[in-house]
């Protein structure tokens, strides 16, 4: 019996069972370029609009971090390539990685593969079937996205090349995931290795483009090869050849590794954990459970602060190149300093809305603890409900405050050093003044999880409302009564001569009511599972 016996049967089984998991990735990767080509002509109808777009975005290194260099924003295809190549590749990559892991390592984890492995199938056939599924899925994703873009009005050559770039990224990641599935000993470990490898390449590409690093750094990165196809500008196909070659090499490596390992274990063995525990109470447990998110969010907010700080430091360039702003300034409706201060308030609100997300997440984690039955084990062992709830709520309020101040302080540092007319102290104070609004958003999640965990989705309402009203609201020209629903509308401008603090009192009052409602509700209601 060859090591690949039965691959065909396994593949048919896999397609039936896992094929549908590719659908969301295909839908997203198609919606992305299709929406670009449809929306672009409407938002930027004239040459002048497009020139302005190219000037503001082309000069913004923060955006370059994610999207890579903007080569030609004056045409619909050029804009589409800039907006979608990296993100569409990311979608294809995640689709492929999860598909391979799900069909290999996850099957071994649950022991389901044992049933199949004990049947008449070769040792490597489940890996082969998984790789074929991921390759085919990526190909379909690229083809649908490319064809869809052409149908929506994109240029044929550029759009198909863009789709091919998605597919090639998917192939590359199928290879990475196939290797990762041999290295990691659990599905989680395999996914982490593969996503980290891809994430590193993705970040390096963005950072090195933004820093305008020497050209060889692009060619040293497989994702750089995909970017160098340059759809709509150079329209090159050949950089995809080394991507595919690397994908095949990785798959070959995975098969060699598969032949050398035992069923159910990876090359990186799971380290045994502690036989004895140090955690003695519910607060220790809460900290432990949130440890991972605390580390990643802290790093994220250092990055957010740096990016937005960079953005704030270049505020004059952005304002100068904006025709509408120039007209307002010329009419004397405001002063440049006033605009900069307004801009700072907006940036702090953005950080605040972002910072409320991990707070809501902490409360949702508590909800998961309850739903999965771990809370019941804890409370029946003597953990008290009020203390457990207070611990979660406290962390949900404190961590976002810290994130807000990390991001805000970094922005303040950049703004002060760039001499744009805002002092370090004022900017930090502005960040601090934003914290109570963050608390209100989190307090809504505290109230929901305390009172009615069944409608947990409502916990996110605060984030959604704040984002819609505070970030999108001004462009919809909503009136103040509607805007005031968002707690961020009440954040005082600390640089004003006599800052109006009544808004803060309102915000604090609502926060207290929500927190109390959650605490009382959690004490009184039935615990579910």
């Amino acid at each position: 019996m060859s090591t690949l016996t039965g691959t065909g049967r396994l593949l048919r089984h896999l397609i039936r069972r896992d094929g549908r998991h590719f659908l969301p990735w295909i839908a997203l990767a198609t919606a992305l370029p299709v929406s670009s080509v449809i929306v672009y002509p409407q938002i930027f109808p004239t040459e002048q609009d497009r020139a302005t777009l190219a000037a503001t975005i082309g000069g913004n290194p923060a955006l370059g971090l994610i999207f890579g260099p903007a080569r030609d924003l004056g045409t619909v295809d050029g804009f589409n390539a800039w907006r979608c190549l990296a993100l569409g590749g990311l979608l294809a990559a995640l689709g492929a990685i999860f598909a391979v892991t799900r069909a290999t390592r996850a099957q071994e984890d649950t022991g389901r593969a044992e049933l199949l492995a004990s049947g008449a199938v070769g040792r490597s056939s489940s890996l082969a079937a998984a790789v074929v599924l991921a390759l085919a899925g990526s190909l379909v994703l690229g083809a649908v996205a490319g064809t869809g873009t052409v149908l929506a009005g994109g240029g044929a050559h550029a759009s198909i090349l863009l789709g091919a770039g998605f597919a090639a990224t998917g192939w590359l990641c199928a290879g990475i995931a196939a290797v990762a599935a041999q290295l990691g000993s659990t599905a989680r470990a395999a996914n982490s290795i593969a996503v980290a490898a891809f994430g590193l390449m993705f970040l390096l590409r963005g950072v090195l483009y933004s820093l305008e690093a020497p050209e060889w750094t692009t060619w040293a990165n497989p994702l750089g090869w995909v970017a160098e196809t340059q759809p709509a500008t150079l329209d090159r196909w050949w950089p995809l050849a080394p991507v595919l070659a690397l994908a095949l090499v990785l798959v070959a490596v995975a098969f060699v590794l598969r032949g050398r390992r035992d069923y159910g274990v990876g090359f990186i063995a799971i380290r045994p954990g502690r036989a004895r525990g140090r955690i003695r109470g519910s607060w220790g447990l809460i900290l432990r459970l949130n440890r991972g998110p605390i580390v990643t969010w802290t790093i994220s907010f250092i990055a957010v602060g740096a990016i937005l700080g960079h953005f704030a430091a270049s505020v004059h360039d952005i304002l100068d190149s904006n025709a509408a702003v120039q007209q307002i300034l010329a009419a004397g409706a405001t002063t440049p300093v006033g605009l900069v201060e307004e801009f700072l308030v907006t940036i702090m609100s953005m950080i605040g809305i972002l910072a409320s997300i991990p707070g809501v997440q902490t409360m949702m984690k508590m909800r998961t603890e309850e739903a999965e039955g771990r809370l019941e084990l804890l409370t029946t062992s003597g953990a008290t409900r009020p203390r457990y709830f207070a611990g979660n709520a406290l962390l949900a309020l404190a961590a976002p405050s810290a994130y807000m101040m990390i991001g805000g302080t970094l922005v303040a540092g950049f703004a002060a050093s760039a001499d744009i007319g805002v002092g370090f102290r004022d900017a930090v104070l502005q960040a601090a003044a934003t914290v109570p609004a963050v608390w209100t958003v989190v307090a809504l999640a505290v109230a929901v999880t305390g009172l009615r965990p069944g409608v947990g989705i409502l916990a996110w309402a605060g984030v959604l409302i704040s984002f819609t009203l505070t970030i999108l609201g001004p462009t919809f020209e909503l009136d103040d009564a509607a805007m005031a629903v968002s707690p961020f509308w009440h954040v005082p401008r600390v640089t004003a001569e006599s800052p109006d603090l009544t808004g803060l009192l309102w915000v604090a009052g609502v926060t207290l009511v929500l927190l109390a409602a959650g605490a009382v509700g959690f004490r009184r209601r039935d615990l579910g599972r």
Partner: protein
Amino acid sequence: MTSEELVIETRGLTKSFGGFQALRGLDLAVGRGQIHGFLGPNGAGKSTALRILLGLIASDGGTARVLGGDPWRDVVELHRRLAYVPGDVALWPGMTGGEAIDLLGALRGSANQARRAELIERFELDPTKRGRQYSTGNRQKVALVSAFSSDVELFVLDEPTSGLDPLMEHVFQEVVGEARERGATVLLSSHILAEVESLADRLSIIRRGRIVETGTLEDLRHQTRTEIHATLARPLDHRARDLLADVHLEGHRLSATVASDRVGEAMDLLAPYGIEGLTVAPPSLASLFLRYYDSDAEEGSPARPDPAQPAPARPAPAQSSPAHGAPEPHGVPEPRSTPWSDAGREA
């Protein structure tokens, strides 16, 4: 039995979830030092009752006392004096079994370190594995080690062995027996009839949110019929049919049932026909339960034994003696669709 001796006592307990009545007046009494089997089909309200006793959910009506306190109001103090093992144990995916045992033990505040080590050994548990690596059975072992290494007065066990292999099931029975010797009370909900049969001093059977039967296994057996299998020298005539039921004759071989208190009369009756071979089997638990679970009529539960009659503190182990010889079906009776798909969900 006076109320001081009762570790658990509920009167007229009711609880509804939306439109579904999970408990309809539950009266449950568990005396100190007992191992009390708590049985009933899925959806009968077992878990709901246990969750009220644990203070996880509030009852709608009736009273409940656990260790002399109100399970809802005195919840924290009670939780330090009891240990709970759910049937479907959920552990923290990133924490090891050892860490979980120590966390729960520290919360209870009565972890016995020597017993913890001994139980880990006996249950053959690897405490260095993480929650996400454990199988169902190993997760149960973590909860069992955590519970039984604590010096508590009451153990509430909700189908605690559904994932254990027979060897570990045996260890579990030993461990529960040792807890009783230390004077602890155990409320054991289980579908594994052999487990209940060998452990429980008393049983309560719940159906549709009410206790339909309570007593020792012997009490319950007396209300049902004993099976007789005999090989006779001469065929049976009609006269015998008044006493026997479910008569099945195949040549010389007879199988029938008789009321458990009239076995002697049946022997007298059969003797003249020349008994060449005989087995007399007390009703199996499985047949007992099917009888209770299966009765369709809402109020048609079998007559209850006199509740005033005190149960022996420690009855003779209820089992068929080897002389009777008939193999007794152990384990869960073959699921039959009607009795087991009883009203609604088990909350």
